């Protein structure tokens, strides 16, 4: 049986959901017989190629995140999102309580930064309002939790035919 091809990314998040995935521990060994990790933060491959399952951790916070979310959606058959940031907006969306200007000003001017001015360049993605993934692209399954436990990720993978075939 062909291995299930997986691509993943963490957007605006703490990487805790991917850590939870690694917390599958010894179950990972069996899993490598069944899945193949293509572009993921774990393999450190950045170019997304067509896959069976796409996984996103984190919320969409800037233009780059938006693009990554779209690329993953385009390259996968089933899109799964991990964690409260991706499902609901989570902690990172608390930034929406303030304007982008206020947030940048706080970060670069009042909280002790090695930069004395707000960096600006065409290469830097612009901050936008923080959104859960389903407000940018269609999501097929959700694994909430902050972070979702390894048990939850495993249970979900086991139940979901696309992810565990």
């Amino acid at each position, binding site marked *: 049986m062909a291995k299930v091809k997986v691509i993943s990314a963490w957007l605006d998040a703490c990487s805790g959901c991917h850590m939870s995935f690694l917390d599958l521990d010894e179950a990972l060994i069996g899993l490598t017989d069944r899945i193949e990790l293509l572009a993921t933060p774990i393999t450190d491959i950045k170019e997304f190629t067509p896959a069976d399952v796409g996984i996103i951790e984190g919320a969409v916070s800037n233009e780059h995140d938006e693009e990554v979310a779209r690329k993953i959606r385009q390259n996968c058959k089933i899109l799964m999102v991990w964690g409260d940031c991706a499902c609901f907006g989570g902690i990172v969306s608390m930034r929406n309580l303030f304007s982008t200007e206020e947030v940048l000003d706080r970060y670069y001017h009042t909280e002790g930064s090695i930069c004395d001015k707000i960096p600006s360049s065409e290469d830097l993605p612009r901050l936008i309002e923080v959104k859960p993934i389903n407000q940018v692209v269609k999501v097929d399954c959700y*694994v909430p939790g902050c972070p979702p436990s390894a048990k939850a990720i495993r249970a979900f993978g086991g139940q979901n035919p696309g992810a565990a075939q």
Partner: protein
Amino acid sequence: MNEITLTINGREVKGKQGDTVLEVCQANGIDVPTLCHLEGLSDVGACRMCVVEIEKERRPVPSCTYPARDGLVVKTNTERLEKYRRQILELIFTEHNHFCMFCEASGDCELQKLAYRYQMDNVRYPYTFPSLSVDSLSDYLIIDHNRCILCGRCIRACSEIAAGYTLNFSQRGWKESVSADLEQPLGESSCLSCGACVQACPTGAIFGKQGLYKGREDECERIQTVCPGCGLGCKIDVLVKDNNLVKIEAPHLTGDSRGTLCRLGRFGLLQATPPRVPSPLIRDSEGELKECSLDEAIAVIVRRLDETDGEVAGMVATRLPSETLSLFKKFMGDVLGSDALDTLDGETYRLIRDGINQFQNNGRGIDIECPIEEIEGADCIMVVGADPQETNPIVSTLVRRAVSQRKAKLIVVNSSRDVFPLWTDLWLKPKARREGALLRILAKAIVNKGLAASERVAPELVELPPDEVFSEIGVDRGTLESAAEMYAKAECGVIIYGEGLLWNSDTSTVTTVLKLADITGNLKDDRLRVISLKSGANSRGAWELGLAKGIKNHKPKMLYLFLADESESEELLRRLRGVDFLVADPAFANMGGKKGDIRFSGRTRSGIQTGTQA
């Protein structure tokens, strides 16, 4: 009670006329999710989680406000209803800013539990991210409007249970919020910090400061005990985790007399524990307290004992449990050879006892007063020389409830201030220490107006005094006569008096209070509708153990002062004046005004207390 029959989910069930559909469901074990409903509070149908389908109704209706009728056909669990309920949850989550991961209530939150139940793993609507405030200026409470779902449970608890009427909604629509008074910070509002709102809140929107993040309810052991805050002996549930106090709750939040707690019971006991001093302290020649060994301390006491010629007395706090009190009595008698004993509130006790004895008591003993529950049914309440909100706040809650919810009349007799400024109908303001004299004229006015039950009238009460007496007491004749009518014409008139009435007073004042109740026929089950407020949790236990006999020699050569966690009160310091040698034994290092030539401290004592509300 008329029985009715309904069909719920195809099953025939019984209910009572006057029940709501929700009540019938709950009585028959049919699970309907709720959020704004809380047993003990009125229902308002705010959240719509409890929607049900009823045959012939065009749309789903909230079961908490829908009256059950005979023959109703109800469905509680259709696919459509479940869909609506999940949709309601999603809307609630987008309305304000809910972040479970750092919320104090996470794990105990009713909203969170419902989100799990309805598997709300995503939200289909855009979040609104409103800018909302957190009010943390109160000593005990925090309101985080971000987590508020506007169910109004806190507001109903504040008005219906605590009768505080501090919280209410302000603004409308998107701007609607729970606010104290007219949008005041809670700490500067009329809030009495009883914490009924904390217990009522389904989310983390209102919570107590002291138990913050100390543990979830399901991680805590719930210990049922009795509050040592005052003499009322309210039942409390103490939540404990890892031998730490997390929070204190009323066993049931209901409109019953004992269905709520006050700031003393809910928060006072959680105050940071003051330091204890494990080693005895001895006062040196310069007047400084120094640590010493137990043997040294005992040696000094023994030496001083020899010099006292047996003039040793013991004074004890009535907050201590009976076991400790009993041991103290034995220690004073067997070891120090003294039966000169008193309690901190012994003087009050003796005044009340003598007053009752002077009154024709028919052998009823000291139990002549009614229980505080009587306040609930009162149509006139007279508060004399007492400030229940300070000493026994639950009594003040009951008074406010009677006045605001059942239109009872309220008379305050107080020389310095109106203790219920928002609620008082008549404030009789005698000159200082003339409350007793005023009560005697009040009794005369009642008799004079022919309002007394005649067979009980003592002849000396018939004549009203001349005007000079009124002005000497400092009260207007007309006001006093109105008060006499108000109290005497009541079906159920309750007099509440406090220790304040008895200071600088004599036993005849207590007798007058009892006579007032007697001549107006305020008697139920052989008890007069009179309540004396006592501050000591175990005053009664101490009296029964014979610890309140009184010390004849007011300046004993040695005094053993045995305290719990009393603070330095004027009254206490007054009584310590003139004592040659003071042994102080408080629970904590800085209690009892740091007085004493020898100080022992550092023990916790547990045991039984006997409430004054027998």
